[in-house]
């Protein structure tokens, strides 16, 4: 039983990472109805920025963390302004191809930057190799989690609360929701729709970068770490593309199922578990867990 809980706990931590990247997908999808396939690569850039912040600039970890998020916020906004806005009005396919291209470009360019390159890096964190035990007495008999996992869960929770407050209680947040629900009406209200979309790209990039920074201590920082986005995509689908809570729940489901499959099932199932979950979900409930099915009233 304890072993099971142990697995679930680390699955949740892994799921938080998927959930955050899925959140990035969903934010952009809701606002602009396009899917950003470079989401995983934005995450990778976040990881590398954290690396530069701590090692090259010598910042304390959390300062580097915050700085990386800020840089990625502006990077995301710039990406929208320079690459995507000129494509406004083009078919969705064009935009999707461009985001795939941006992903390739990011992976390629990263390997050309000195200090980053093709090597595998370790992001040094102050909480490395610490252990938290819950329940039981001391380190015996309780649920044991590595500090890395605890931090992942805690930071994800904080981020979610912050985003919730932003979307529910600030004018700009409500305007972002409004724009995603009815862009034309947002124009009529005088909401600066283009600027709002730019901000959404920024936030999405920052959220992904946050996932990268949280994941880095558990795995490594590498030019190809962005491929984890391929598992976050099923998370977004399971949650019902277009639902923010859905993205997180979907991420958690994928994370937990994957971890359990890795332990209880034969070799190889770990890697395909996410896709099996998404296939089952599509067969049973194609709209996803939190999928919206709104019809317009005439």
């Amino acid at each position: 039983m304890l072993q099971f809980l142990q697995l679930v706990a680390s699955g949740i931590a892994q799921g938080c990472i998927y959930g955050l990247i899925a959140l990035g997908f969903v934010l952009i999808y809701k606002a602009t109805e396009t899917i950003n396939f470079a989401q995983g690569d934005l995450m990778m850039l976040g990881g590398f920025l954290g690396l530069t912040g701590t090692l090259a600039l010598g910042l304390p970890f959390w300062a580097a963390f915050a700085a990386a998020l800020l840089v990625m916020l502006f990077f995301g906004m710039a990406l929208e302004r320079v690459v995507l806005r000129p494509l406004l009005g083009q078919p969705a396919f064009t935009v999707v191809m461009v985001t795939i291209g941006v992903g390739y470009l990011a992976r390629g360019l990263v390997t050309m930057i000195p200090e980053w390159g093709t090597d595998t890096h370790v992001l040094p964190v102050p909480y490395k190799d610490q252990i938290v035990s819950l329940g039981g007495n001391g380190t015996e008999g309780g649920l044991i989690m590595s500090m890395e996992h605890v931090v992942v869960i805690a930071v994800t929770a904080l981020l979610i609360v912050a985003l919730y407050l932003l979307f529910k209680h600030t004018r700009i947040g409500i305007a972002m929701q409004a724009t995603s629900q009815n862009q034309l009406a947002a124009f009529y209200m005088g909401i600066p729709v283009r600027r709002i979309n730019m901000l959404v790209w920024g936030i999405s990039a920052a959220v992904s970068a946050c996932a990268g920074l949280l994941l880095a201590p558990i795995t490594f920082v590498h030019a190809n770490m962005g491929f984890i986005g391929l598992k976050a995509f099923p998370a977004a689908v399971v949650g019902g593309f277009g639902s923010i809570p859905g993205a997180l729940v979907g991420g958690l489901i994928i994370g937990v199922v994957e971890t359990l499959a890795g332990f209880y099932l034969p070799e190889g199932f770990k890697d395909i578990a996410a896709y099996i979950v998404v296939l089952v979900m599509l067969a049973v409930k194609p709209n996803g867990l939190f999928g919206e099915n709104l019809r317009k009233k005439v």
Partner: protein
Amino acid sequence: MSDVILQLNNVESSYGPVKAIRGVSLKVSQGSVVTVLGANGAGKSTILKTISGIIDPQKGSVVYRGEPIQKKDPAWIVRQGIAHVPEGREIFPLLTVRENLLMGAYTRALGERAAVEQEIGQVYGYFPILKERANQPAGQLSGGQQQMLAISRALLAKPTIMLLDEPSLGLSPKLTHEIFEIIRRINAERGVTILVVEQNARVALKYADYGYVLEVGRIVMEDPCSVLREKEDVKEFYLGIKDAGVRGTRRWKKKKTWR
């Protein structure tokens, strides 16, 4: 007419190669209720969209308080006091009624928060049902309530002039009259100038002061509504009142008969 607040001079707008309005000129004087009548596809909505900057006209000018405003940013135009109630309400379905109203006030400074709250209270006075449903998602409202919400939302931009695009669309006759009563009240009590485009000529002519008739992108007639109501052509084609007679005797009428 007294002082003109909004004037269109020879405006031409199109969707791609399709010209929707071809040289429309009209005047709206301060404090009045003006209507533009026309059938489906006559270009009514295009006129409003051109005024509020959603569509840029190819030719002509839109003059608001003596200044040309064509080809400006829609957000800028809203800030100048032109609020648009779009066709088919276009509310934000997942936001609550209150949040919808707050979005209507988006262009106003953050410092006006208290004034906005007070105005939300006033708007609830016009439409008490909205207060009851303040915290429900707007998508759950009925069609009529959504129209009320759309009008209220536009009011929160503190407009000098309000553009209404077919407020009667999809509403029962009773509800249509109620909505128009309130539009008149808004005009009288708050001094908001109203430009309303309508297919429902009977109601529009009853409540408006001055009317234009638009056919395939051109203004074909204009007069005070009391005069328009009595014109034979308007009676026959927009009000459905007809003296006994042979259908399609006059050429331009023949075009409009259904056979």
